[in-house]
Each structure stands twice: as C-alpha cells, then as structure tokens.
C-alpha cells in the first residue's frame, strides 16, 4: 500500500473495489518493490511543481520520500524471500544505493521540461505476478474525468494530453480506449448537436496533441466503421459471438445472460450490466488501446475460411476481457455490433475534425493554428464563419475522396488548408460521393423553383446509379451510389467501358444509370429485373440479364477534374467524346427547356413515365453570369454549412455567396436545388390498411422497455382468423410506445430508469432501416421517461397471452401475444409476395401470402372494432391493383434511400 501509484488508484476506486482485492496484498507483497510503479506519479507531481521554482528542495524531498518507501517495502517483502528469486530478475533499482535513488527524481525533472517523450523509466516492464484481479475494479480515472464537453474555447488539451501521455507510457504509449469511451459517454449523454461536436472536437484535440497515431483509428471507431464503403471489410460477427464472449468473460450462464438480455435488449447495455458480474482473473488486464481495438476489428474482418469463427471469437473474447469497467464493454460491444448509437457519424465527424485542426496540431507539425483567446473574443457570427470555412474544405475533400485513411494523415501534416483539397482530391478508382437531387412534389413546383433559368430534363431511368472510372490503360471500376464496388457485378460493362472512349479520351469518370434492357429490342426492363442479377463474381458468360449504361454526367476527363465546369459543358464533353454502342451504352434522353416550356416538359415527363422511368431529373445548365439574380435569396441550399454562411451573408448584405445560387457545377455529396427530381405522383397510390396488432417483441436498445416491432394482421372473412401480414416499427412516437406497453403488459416490468437512461436518452435512429446517415439526426423527443407509472404489481398480464391465440395465423415466435382488440391504420410502400406471412394465402398464390413493404403506423382507429379491420380479400385486391399498374414503383428501394439521406443536415 505504500507505493503512491497504488494508493492513488485505490483511493479513487475504493467504493467499487470492495473486499475482492483488498486481501491480496499480503500474498503478493513482493510485487511492490518495483521501482517502475513509483516514478510515474512522481513525475506528474514534479511536472507541476517544477514551475514554482525550488527544484533542489523538491527533488531531494522526493528522493528521501522514495528512499523511505523502498526501504519499508523491502523490509516488508523479505518474509516472502522464497518468491524473491523471480522478481530479482526484473530491473529494480537497488534501494540500498542512495545515489541512484536521487537520480530518479532528477531525471524526472529533465523529462518534465520535454513532456512529449514518454518517460523512459516507466517503460521498464514490471514483472507481473500471478494474482487474483477483479477487473471491474480497475478504471482509468484520468480519462474518466476529462471534461470533453467543455467549450473548445476553454478546454485545454495540452494539459490533459500531458497527463495522459504519462499514464499511457506505462502501457506502451498508445492512447487508451478509455479516452474514447469517455468521449462516447459524453456524446451519448446529450442530445445537443453543439455539445456533441464540442465533445468530439476536444477529444480529437487531445489525440492530435497526445497521440497523433491513434487519431485515425479513433476516427474510424467513432464513425463505427473500419474501412471506406468501397473497400469491403465486414466484421461478420453474429450476436451469438458476443453472447458467447459475455458468457465466457463474465462467467454467466445462459439463463442469467438471457435475463439481462430481456431486461435491456441492447447488447451494449447487456455488456455493461454483465461486466459488473465479472469474476476474478489471474492477472491485471492490459488496458485496451484505441489502436488495439481498431486492429482487433480489422483482424476479425480479415479472418476468413476454416476456423475463422474460432479466431474471431477469441479476438472478441479478448476485447471484452480487457475492457475495463462497464462503459468500455458497452462501447466495445456496440462497436462489434456495428451499431454505436452515439449520433456522431460522417458529417459530425468532419465538422469536428475541421475544428480540431484549427485548434491543435501534432508535435512537430508547423501549420498555423487559431489562438483560443482570440476566438473567444469573436462574435458568434464571426466564429461561425471561421468554423464553416474549414468545414467546407474538409467536407469537400471527403466528398471527393471518402476515406479517412487518406484524409487524416494529410491533415496531420498540413492541417486544413486549400492544399488539402489538392493533396486529397478526386482520383481515379476511388469513388466520389455522388451529387444528389432534391425531391419536388410535381412539375409545377419544379418550374417555380427554376424560374428564369435554363435547365435540362433527363429521363430518370429505373435502374441503378453507377459511377464508372476508367484509366488510360482501359482498366475500369464501377461504384454504386453508396460507393460500394460493383466492378464484379458488371463484367459486361467493364468490358464495354474502354471501348466507348472516343478519340482523345484516355481516362474519365462518368456517371450514369445501369438499366436492364432487352438486347434485341432495347426495351427497358424494370428495376426488379436488374436486382435479379447476381451480385458478386459474375462471369461474363453466365449473364442472362443484359444491361445498358445511360450516361448523364462526366466528372473527370484525361486527368482533369471537371467538377467546377457548368453542366452544359460537362454534358457537351460527354456527348461529343464518347461513342454510343446501341443497347449497351448511350446517353440519357434529355430535353433542354426553361420555365416557359411547361407544355414540352409535361410531354417529356409523360414520355418518361410511359417507358417505365421513375420520372425525370431536372438540372441547371449554366451558372449565372452575375450574382445579382433576384431569385437568389429564397433559394436556400439545404446543407448545414451553407446555412450558416447564408445567414452571415444576409446580415452583412454582401452578395459574395455564390453558394445559394443554383449551381451548374457538380457538387459531390450535396443535395441542392440545382438538381431536382420529379417523380410520378406518390400520393396517387395512397391506400391504407386497417390492421390488428396481435403480438410484439421486446424492443432493442432505447426501445428495450417497449414492444417493438409489433406484429399486425388482417382478418380472414371466411375463417374469422387473423392472418399476420407484417411487423411494424415505424411511425410510432415514444409516448405511443409507452401507452402501448402499458396497454399490453406482461408484467415483466421495466428496468430501473437511470441505468439505461443515461446511455440511451436521446439517441435513436428513425425507425426505418437504412443508411447509417440517419444517426446524424438526433431526435429531440420530449423526454418524458422519468415518470414511470407507479401502479406496480396489480397490472400483471394485461391484455396479453402467453401463447398464440388459436385464431391467429403466424409461424414465428413473438415475445408476447396481444389480446387482439385494436385497429390501426397503416400506410405502406407496396405489397409483396411473402414466404413468411400467410395473409391472403390462396387468394393470389398457393404457396405465398402477402406482406407490406415499409409499413408505417398512421393512427389508431378507435372507431373501428377488429371485425371491421381490413380483410385478406381487400389486401389481395390491392395487390392485384398494384400489379395491374405494373408500376415502376418497384424501385421504391432507391427512392427511400434517397429520402433518408435527406434528413442528414
């Protein structure tokens, strides 16, 4: 107990340690005379003291203190002389020699002057001893108390970086995962976007200054990915791997693990709880490092083939084993589940990075920083302008080269400046993020928006958007709109692409729509036909579904990016320099028009929908020659940073913001009004169904205490049974969930508020599944979770059944069966044939029932009883109607992905 290092730890944790580790001292007292433990804390004391002058005294005092301690320890250790044999081999400074003892603090003082180097003393590894360790007890108190959520203008990363470096030095020098966990906890604990960004900024600054090498892995971990989308690295871990690891590491059996699972739902929260039950281990765990965790993930993703399951399991076990405390386990597990739920994905991270590099630079870097004191004096608007300039650059880089592996190293070297765009710009065979179109309700709205401008209308084909790269050697890569590699999927295109280059074209990046066609007639097929193509390793001979590439944009030509050129120019290059190959490669049908040509546009739109296109895309052709155009002010670009700029600009009445004008340039990753989608009327096919909720499952994560999803059924008029038609978890509000849970109560009760509450409060995705971008939006639902209903015991088993009612048709196993009594009005995208659901079976198909895509709750129909719910015959009728329309609406999938992304602001 006499080593200061030990004492400090124990003091701060004494409440959690409990009796489990106290009694170990006598047994392993021989661990103590290790010098390496002692100098570390001494260093941080002296590091601060030194500045107050009086070096000599401090040093000597310390030396004496150390000497006294060692003598004492030595005496204490002597009884276990037998054990000394092994420890003698470790590099202990012989305590008998007064001189050496004095040298230690001297040395420390030297180091305090140059804190960037880790203290060499500390790196000497102490030889560990076999002993019982309670892992739950060891916590990184330094990281745990860093106020990352302070304003970046008051937060001092240097102070913490230094402290942390000393701490890390003892473990190999890499930044600890505890630091990142601390950041996650703080981010998770708030719903304020500003706080989230501040927290990330501060965490990044500490890393930039303290351990720049860990910055890149930290960014990957915080964005919950391990590679850019165009490099396919999948963890491929099932929930069972995590359950197994939890059982193994925390000494749980199936039953107790299931109990925790049922209570909390989310695997991360389960890990948090389970870690509390952790048993003893035989040695002190090595703290997780940011690098280590990231490398483990990469290892998991890379292990393939025979026995890889076991290898992965071992890595997962190890991660959970070494996680200190509940929070680290929670986030390790959430990371492994690929569902971090901290609401800090791409956009937030890019903003945070851009700010962090304004305020911090790694040791040795030269790029200019902003002085915090100066920034503090600035007005809000001025500050916003400074921030947004850098955000623009970083976002632009990432849109052109969406890979942190490329971005971060350059940033560490030169910070955020215009050079970054050059060093980290558009490159062949690396996809850029596509420009996106805004949705309009109808043609009229589109025409109003584009008033006074020349625009091009293009068919929006019902296919798959593709980005085609081709280098001067004729090597082609094809990427999806989500930047996944599709080169393997379209070997026919890969073969075709070099041939479409006209004279003078060597390399290019173009964008187009891949559409399934009939090779003989050139007739277009719908999107579903295209989806029937194999996805991977398609052999060119085995292709049965022919495709045609309809090009619409050219972003790069012969080594030159064309993003800054107006669309008219890009299109001209695309049309003149490439060679059409009938039914293989051509250009999209277009019509150039202005807002006066509404007749022509309408006609064009009709032509588009007649050949099964989704609608039309409308694009601005030219940039405005001058910026004085009157239409500008109400055209607010829907991306966040533009907003701040606009605001600032409007205040100053400066016409310097070209941005809000409709641009004819290619703006990667932006959804601007310069590209507009006009689609076939959404609402014309707006049918709803009145369905009966019949069962539910325990929710995951935030919804752990509610029923979600909920199983819904239609009524079969002939048999009187209820036939399950879909699960629904969309369209419900939190208060609806609460009421629902109260109404259908199986008595299993809620977990005590507070345990999940802290972590789960505000973050949750919109319930539609889809792209990760949804995290970027934080729901600000009024948090009315605190008042839990207090009626207690008497409400057990209300409106629920333990087993399936005989009149309900469903093959699955929900967690709870409802007593059918309500009718809910539901919207949906379309009706599909389903092998799982049996609704309307026999009416449209003998083997398959019908189900709904994207079901969404609209409202309760209190006016209807369950006998008035929609019948299976009605459902079948809707399906027939839908099929009769042979709607190109089959491509709803793409559409929906688009819409989801729009929420990212």
């Amino acid at each position: 107990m006499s080593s200061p290092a030990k004492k400090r730890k124990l003091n701060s944790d004494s409440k959690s340690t409990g009796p489990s580790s106290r009694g170990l001292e006598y047994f392993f007292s021989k661990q103590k005379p290790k010098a390496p433990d002692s100098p570390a804390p001494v260093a941080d004391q002296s590091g601060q003291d030194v500045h107050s002058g009086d070096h000599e005294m401090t040093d000597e005092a310390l030396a004496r203190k150390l000497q006294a301690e060692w003598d004492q320890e030595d005496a204490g250790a002597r009884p276990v002389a037998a054990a000394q044999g092994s420890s003698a081999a470790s590099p202990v400074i012989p305590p008998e020699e007064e001189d050496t003892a004095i040298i230690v603090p001297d040395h420390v003082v030297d180091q305090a002057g140059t804190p960037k180097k880790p203290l060499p003393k500390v790196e000497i590894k102490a030889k560990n001893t076999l002993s019982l360790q309670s892992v739950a007890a060891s916590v990184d108190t330094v990281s745990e108390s860093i106020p990352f959520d302070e304003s970046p203008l008051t937060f001092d990363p240097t102070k913490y970086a230094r402290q942390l470096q000393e701490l890390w030095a003892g473990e190999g020098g890499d930044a600890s995962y505890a630091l990142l966990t601390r950041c996650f906890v703080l981010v998770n604990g708030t719903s304020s976007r500003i706080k989230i960004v501040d927290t990330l900024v501060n965490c990044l600054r500490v890393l930039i200054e303290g351990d720049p090498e860990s910055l890149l892995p930290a960014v990957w971990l915080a964005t919950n990915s391990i590679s850019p989308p165009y490099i396919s690295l999948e963890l491929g871990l099932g929930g069972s791997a995590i359950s197994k690891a939890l059982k193994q590491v925390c000494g749980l059996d199936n039953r107790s693990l299931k109990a925790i699972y049922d209570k909390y739902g989310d695997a991360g929260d389960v890990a948090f709880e389970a870690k509390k039950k952790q048993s003893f281990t035989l040695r002190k765990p090595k703290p997780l490092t940011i690098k280590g965790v990231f490398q483990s993930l990469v290892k998991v993703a890379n292990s393939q083939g025979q026995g890889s399951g076991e290898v992965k399991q071992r890595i997962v076990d190890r991660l959970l084993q070494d996680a200190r405390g509940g929070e680290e386990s929670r986030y390790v597990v959430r990371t492994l589940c690929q569902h971090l739920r901290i609401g800090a994905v791409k956009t937030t991270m890019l903003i945070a990075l851009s700010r962090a590099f304004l305020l911090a630079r790694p040791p040795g870097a030269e790029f200019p920083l902003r002085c915090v004191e100066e920034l503090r004096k600035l007005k809000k608007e001025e500050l916003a302008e400074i921030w947004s300039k850098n955000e623009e650059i970083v976002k632009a880089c990432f849109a052109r080269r969406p890979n942190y592996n490329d971005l971060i190293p350059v940033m560490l070297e030169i910070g955020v400046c215009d050079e970054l765009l050059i060093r980290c710009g558009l490159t062949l065979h690396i996809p850029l993020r596509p420009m996106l179109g805004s949705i309009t309700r109808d043609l009229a709205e589109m025409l109003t928006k584009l008033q006074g401008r020349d625009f091009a209308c293009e068919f929006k084909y019902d296919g798959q958007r593709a980005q085609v790269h081709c280098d001067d050697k004729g090597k082609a890569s094809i990427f999806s709109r989500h930047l996944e590699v599709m080169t393997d999927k379209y070997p026919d295109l890969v073969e075709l692409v070099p041939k479409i280059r006209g004279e003078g074209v060597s390399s290019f990046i173009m964008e187009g729509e891949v559409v399934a066609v009939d090779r003989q007639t050139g007739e277009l097929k719908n999107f579903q036909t295209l989806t029937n193509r194999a996805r991977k390793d398609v052999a060119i001979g085995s292709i049965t579904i022919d495709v045609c590439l309809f090009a619409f944009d050219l972003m790069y030509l012969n080594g030159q990016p064309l993003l800054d050129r107006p669309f008219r120019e890009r299109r001209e290059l695309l049309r003149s320099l490439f060679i059409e190959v009938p039914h293989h490669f051509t250009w999209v049908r277009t019509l150039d028009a202005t807002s006066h040509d509404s007749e022509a546009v309408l006609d064009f739109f009709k032509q588009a929908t007649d050949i099964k296109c989704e609608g039309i895309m409308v694009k601005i052709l030219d940039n405005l020659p001058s910026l004085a155009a009157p239409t500008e002010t109400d055209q607010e670009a829907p991306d966040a940073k533009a907003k701040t700029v606009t605001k600032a600009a409007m205040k100053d009445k400066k016409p310097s913001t070209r941005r809000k004008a409709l641009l004819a340039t290619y703006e990667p990753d932006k959804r601007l009004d310069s590209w507009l989608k006009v689609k076939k009327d959404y609402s014309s096919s707006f049918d709803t169904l009145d369905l009966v909720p019949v069962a539910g499952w325990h929710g995951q994560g935030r919804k752990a205490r509610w029923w979600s999803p909920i199983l819904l059924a239609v009524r079969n008029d002939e048999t009187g049974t209820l036939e399950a038609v879909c699960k629904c978890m969309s369209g419900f509000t939190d208060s609806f969930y609460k009421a629902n849970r109260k109404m259908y109560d199986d008595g299993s009760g809620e977990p005590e508020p507070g345990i999940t509450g802290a972590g789960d409060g505000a973050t949750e995705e919109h319930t539609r599944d889809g792209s990760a971008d949804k995290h970027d939006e934080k729901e600000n639902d009024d948090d009315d979770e605190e008042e839990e209903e207090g009626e207690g015991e008497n409400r057990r088993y209300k409106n629920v059944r333990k087993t399936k009612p005989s009149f309900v048709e469903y093959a699955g196993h929900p967690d709870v069966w409802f007593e059918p009594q309500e009718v809910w009005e539901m919207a949906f995208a379309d009706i599909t044939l389903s092998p799982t659901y049996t609704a309307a079976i026999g009416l449209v198909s003998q083997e398959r029932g019908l189900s709904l895509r994207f079901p969404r709750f609209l409202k309760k129909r209190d006016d209807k009883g369950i006998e008035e719910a929609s019948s299976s015959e009605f459902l079948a009728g809707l399906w027939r109607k839908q099929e009769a329309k042979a709607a190109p609406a089959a491509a709803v999938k793409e559409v929906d992905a688009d819409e989801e992304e729009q929420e990212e602001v």
Partner: protein
Amino acid sequence: MLEARLQQANVLKKTVDAIKDLVQDCNFDCNDSGIALQAMDNSHVALVSMLLKAETFQPYRCDRNIALGVNLVSLTKVLRAAQPDDVLTMKAEDAPDSLNILFESSENDRITEYDLKLMDIDQEHLGIPDTEYAATISMPSAEFKRICTDLMAMSESVTIEATKDGVKFSCTGDIGNGAVTLRNHQVEEKPKENIEIELTEPVSLTFSLKYLVNFCKAQALSDSVRICLSNEVPLLVEYLVSGQSYLRFYLAPKIGDEE
C-alpha cells in the same frame, strides 16, 4: 542446441492433450534444468504451468536457453502419430525455425520423424509465488475427474468446501443440487486410493467446472492429484509427472452472486 529424449512418448502426449484446450500457442522454454511452459487461457482465468525436469529425459542436453513457440493444435497432430510406448526425441537448433521430433518404436525399428514449424510468441511470464494454502487435498486423480464430470451434468460451477470434517464438492443447478463429500482415507495396501486432507483453516470457494473438467484431462499423467485452496488466492491443481516434473493448473475462483 537442444536434445531431449523421452522414454515414453505418452508423457508429452498426455501433457499436451491436457493443455491444448486451454491454450492455443505457447512457448516451451528450454534451459539446462529442463523444459518449462507457462501459459494463460484467453480469458485469463486459468494458468498452466508445466515443468519437465532434465531428469525426466534420458539424455537431456540444452546448451543455451531456447524458447520454442509452438501451436499446440499442430503439435497434437504430430504427437498423434506416436505410439504411447515410443521413444520420443526432440531436437532444436539454438535459434530454431522448427522443432525436430523423432519417434522410435520400442518394438521394431520403425522411425518416424517430423519437423514442426515454430513461431514467435510474445509471451509474458508471471511470477508464481510460493503459498501456504489453507487446505491441501490429495486424492486419486480418477476420483477428482469423476467428481468434476458428475457435477458438470448438474451445474456450471462447483463449490469446494474444506472443513475439519472433510472436503465437500457441491453444486446447484436448474434440475436440483448435488454434493460429493470425501474424508481422510488411508489404507496401507492401496496407497493409490489414499485421500489426505491437510487443513490450517476452513475454506470454501466456487470454481467453474468447465475449467476443472479441462484440467482433469491430465489425469492420465498421474495417479494422484493435489488440490490446494486458500481464500483470495487462485486454486492450484497439481499433477506430478515423475520425479520433480509437474503439471500445474491455477484457476481464479468465481465471485459469488451475493457480492
């Protein structure tokens, strides 16, 4: 240069069998006093410590300290080719890439030779302190194995309680509970069946049966097993191989639910 000749391949076979499920890769540390191995399982709950003294081998020669990094699954594959009574010889250079293993049949002149690739394993050694245990139980190794496998059918963990009356192995599971109690038992004629309990203070600890059952695979090495318990100290299960050579397992107790 290492050269170690083992009269019975079985000793190594059994030893490796007993530890291969706990540990995947580990170093065989060879020096002039013998071959030692120390490794911890992935979850750091159990530790294996093996020492095959130089006297176990005939002859034994090791000029310089060598660490042989072995994948135990691979080693098992090689050892599977050996008959129990084969004479086994291990040879390695001073900075070896591979370990040469030779089996000579005791009955005919059949000679089998393998070269096993080695790897670099960065392994940390724990100092194992000598401990006065509160309770030391010696019993037939088969008996211990039987208790563990029997109780394993009931539960995942066993509580070992040593009092002056004897030692009680008890467990509680979904289907009920069970216990085996042993007392001091010494018969001159059958020393192999002796049960000896030395006790300085009563002790009661709970352990994972999965690990204990794993340890019991070493039963083939020795007729008797020594189990040592103390509060707040890992459990020691020791099998003496021959002479001073041993195979020891350490296991961290489980923390009871009441804490």
